[in-house]
């Protein structure tokens, strides 16, 4: 799989791919102007693999009912609803380099910090809360999901984002 992905224009070399075997994941450095996430997903699917986290074990404590919203998120939604805010979920892992870059470049950006005043911000460690990541069908990291106070997904982004564009998106979605 690494060999196939490294042949995609915009990735170009195996040095740009780091495999995290224990987590069934890999980090890719890529030129967004040349290759998209969809191109990568297509290459993965073509090889017979499926993007995403493995099926949740039936004894997963976080989800008692397959339809119910995970408790962690349900509590955050309640907070958001009580405060008249929306909910922003940030799916990350300690070993995820891209997530650290997102924290440094986006969540420390003044315009994003201001826009987050209207949001309850919940960081979800995908190792610790695999069930929650599975519930929201997280296929990559960092994944940011914006939920309305009713729990409906209104926006999702995977990978690096521009802080100014994202703060604008946060403001627009809250106004709706």
């Amino acid at each position, binding site marked *: *799989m*690494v*060999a196939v992905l490294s042949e995609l224009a915009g990735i170009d070399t195996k040095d*740009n791919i780091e*495999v*995290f*075997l*224990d*987590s*069934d*994941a*890999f*980090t*890719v*450095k*890529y*030129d*967004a*102007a040349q290759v998209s*996430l969809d191109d*990568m*997903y297509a290459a*993965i699917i073509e*090889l017979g*693999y*499926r*993007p*995403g*986290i*493995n*099926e949740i074990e039936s004894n997963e404590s976080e989800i008692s009912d397959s339809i119910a919203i995970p408790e962690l998120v349900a509590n955050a939604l309640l907070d958001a609803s009580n405060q008249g805010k929306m909910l922003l979920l940030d799916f990350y*892992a300690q070993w*995820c*380099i*891209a*997530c650290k*870059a997102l924290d440094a470049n986006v969540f420390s950006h003044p315009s994003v910090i201001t826009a987050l005043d209207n949001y309850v911000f919940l960081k979800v460690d995908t190792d610790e809360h695999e069930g929650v990541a599975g519930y929201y069908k*997280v*296929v*990559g*990291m*960092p994944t940011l999901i914006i939920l309305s106070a009713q729990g409906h997904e209104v926006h999702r982004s*995977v*990978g*690096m984002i521009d802080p100014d564009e994202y703060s604008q998106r946060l403001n627009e979605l809250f106004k709706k």
Partner: protein
Amino acid sequence: MFTHRLRHTPSIKILELMCMRYSKSKWLLVFPLVMASLLTSLSVRASAAEAELSSVTLFVEGMMKSVGGVT
């Protein structure tokens, strides 16, 4: 005739020599500066190209179970 005489006038000779020396010393000063700015520009371009790379972590179901998946 007049220009020939003028060229061989001592003061003109001195002036010519001064100009040549100035020209040589100027290049001795300018050359390292040009090289330094060129190298700086190249390294800035290289780091900018590196900075333009995005990074993402992708999950693939069952990748761990198959050695073929990661080779």
